[in-house]
């Protein structure tokens, strides 16, 4: 460990692993350390099942759960948008070659105590039972507008400037009612709350486009999920980093981040060893005094031996409960994966209900989500703090990622990573630095 590095990365969560990979690829000498014995930190998928039960201090699972090793349970539920930034990162870095994916089968939205399929194209909009006859037509016109919209071609804006006018105005232009606004903003544009209504419409238009372009790629839904669970993602980027020369150390406690002149980081100490470096990249748990708490997220892992009712027995699905439907100010998310992804034993499903905590009794808050699941065989609840760094790291050269938020996809994760990379290196990540096809070496 007593060596000198350009960068030391602490924690092997997804964000840190992506950063480590990007830094190694950019030619930096990287040391990547985790205090745990395993890769992935909070982004790991827990295997075997016995470990999940003991993590939550529950009695060991009985025989009905099948082989413990067949389970890989995520702690933080998320899906990939098929045309989203993480997929782009995976393709550009070549990490996609380590992974296999399945398309998530269904995308649903909650309305009036029931769930309905999220309509995305004109045909589905006309068939949807979310809207009345006249509203369907208005919604269809709105979808056509979004589809034809090109940010660089004002002719497609149809006398509406999405850069200055807000989303509320766009809804009003198409006379969409509150209900339609609700599922458009939350189930298509995937906003967590209603603050987007007062922001320029371009943001939401682009999000809806991302949703429909993602849907167009693999069918059924805009979401993808990796075989063997999300824990495969950080591991893939860790391998990328190692392939490009990064050094890995696990099970290594970090005792101190050593600062030098002007409060700039000069190294990292573990016991008597000090590794020197010019920069540190880490998750909030390694620097409790440099982050502040911004809120809390509740996540409830539910093990089920049946699919969710009214989803056509989907083996994977996402259900969004828009805030207003249940009198809240942030959405509740339900995501379901199953044995088909090699994350559960045959016949089993893992449902995860999560939301941003708003009251002193978060378990009650997620009840509308739990109620959709039917009989729950086992339930594990965790409430975790959501941390943000107190500064941008330019002074100390310690760059800290934000905790994982309640969103069910990786868009905010990637934004954070790209922003940290830019702050740390002073440049945007140059995707061309990676050998494009691995084909190079086989032809």
């Amino acid at each position: 460990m007593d060596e000198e590095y350009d960068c030391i990365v602490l924690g092997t969560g997804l964000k840190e692993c992506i950063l480590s990979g990007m830094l190694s690829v950019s030619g930096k000498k990287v040391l990547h350390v985790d205090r745990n014995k395993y890769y992935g930190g909070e982004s790991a998928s827990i295997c075997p099942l016995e470990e999940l039960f003991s993590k939550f201090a529950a009695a060991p699972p009985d025989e009905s759960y099948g082989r413990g090793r067949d389970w890989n349970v995520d702690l933080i539920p998320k899906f990939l948008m098929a045309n989203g930034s993480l997929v782009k990162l995976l393709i550009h870095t070549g990490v996609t070659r380590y992974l296999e994916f399945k398309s998530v089968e269904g995308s649903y939205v909650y309305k009036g105590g029931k769930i309905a399929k999220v309509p995305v194209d004109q045909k589905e909009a006309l068939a949807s039972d979310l809207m009345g006859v006249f509203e369907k037509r208005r919604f269809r016109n709105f979808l056509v507008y979004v589809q034809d919209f090109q940010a660089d071609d004002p002719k497609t804006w149809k006398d509406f400037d999405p850069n200055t006018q807000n989303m509320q105005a766009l809804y009003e232009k198409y006379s969409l009612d509150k209900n339609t606004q609700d599922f458009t903003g939350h189930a298509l544009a995937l906003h967590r709350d209603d603050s987007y209504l007062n922001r320029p419409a371009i943001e939401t238009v682009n999000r809806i486009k991302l949703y429909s372009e993602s849907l167009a790629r693999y069918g059924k839904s805009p979401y993808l999920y990796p075989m063997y669970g999300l824990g495969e993602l950080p591991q893939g980027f860790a391998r990328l980093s190692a392939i490009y020369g990064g050094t890995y150390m696990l099970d290594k406690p970090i005792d101190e981040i050593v600062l030098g002149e002007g409060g700039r980081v000069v190294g990292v100490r573990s016991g008597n060893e000090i590794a020197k470096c010019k920069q540190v990249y880490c998750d909030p748990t390694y620097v409790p005094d440099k982050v502040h708490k911004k809120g809390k997220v509740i996540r409830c892992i539910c093990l089920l031996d049946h699919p969710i009712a009214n989803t056509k027995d989907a083996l994977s699905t996402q259900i969004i409960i828009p805030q207003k439907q249940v009198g809240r100010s942030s959405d509740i998310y339900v995501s379901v994966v199953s044995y088909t992804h090699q994350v559960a034993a045959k016949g089993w499903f893992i449902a995860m209900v999560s939301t941003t905590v708003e009251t002193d009794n978060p378990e009650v808050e997620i009840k509308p989500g739990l109620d959709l699941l039917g009989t729950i065989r086992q339930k594990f609840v965790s409430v975790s703090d959501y941390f943000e760094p107190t500064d941008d790291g330019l002074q100390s050269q310690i760059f800290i990622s934000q905790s994982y938020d309640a969103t069910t996809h990786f868009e905010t994760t990637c934004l954070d990573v790209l922003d940290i990379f830019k702050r740390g290196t002073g440049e945007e990540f140059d995707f061309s630095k990676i050998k494009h096809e691995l084909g190079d070496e086989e032809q």
Partner: protein
Amino acid sequence: MATIRVPEQKIILCGEYGVGKSSIFRRFTNNTFVTATDRKSTLGLDHCSKIFSPSDRDLKLQLWDTGGMERVASITSSYYKFAEAAILVFSFDNPASFHVLSQHLLDIVTYAENAKIFLCGNKSDLIEEPPQITDSEMDNFCEQCHNLISGIYKTSCKTGEGLEEMFVDIASQLVNMNRSKIELQSIEQHGFKIVPYEEESQDDGCIC
């Protein structure tokens, strides 16, 4: 243009740091050898595919190297996923690398349950007289692991001896074992790889 895809089999190299896994990988890739442990020579190299045609059936062996992760940390479990075969490597000049093999074997059976496992004694040019690891010790090891080992090879990356033979033999064993399996592979059971938009239209839209 519809082309018949040659079945591809992922093979992983396992074993202690310094036994010559990357040398085997380098021989496989471009048939070269370097003496110095030089990280740079494998930098950016991840895995490599070559077509073998045992008993007139084409099979693409896709060999994966560890990327040096085992030096201080452990290898990620995802390294083992989807592997059809694993080569357990030890070196003849380092008895410790042989005696620790059961640990690596355990990792393989845990994370790559269905992989066929092969034993490879590397640096055969350094075998002393009497040898530090004897043939009977190797046989004993195979017996102890309940005949999980499907083949034993002696190789020298320095001279190139035994390597081609090893891969040909592994290929022919995989062809026989997987004959029915490959044909039965259904999309139902498997996920897909994500590829850039442009590549999707091509028939061999595999990015690796």
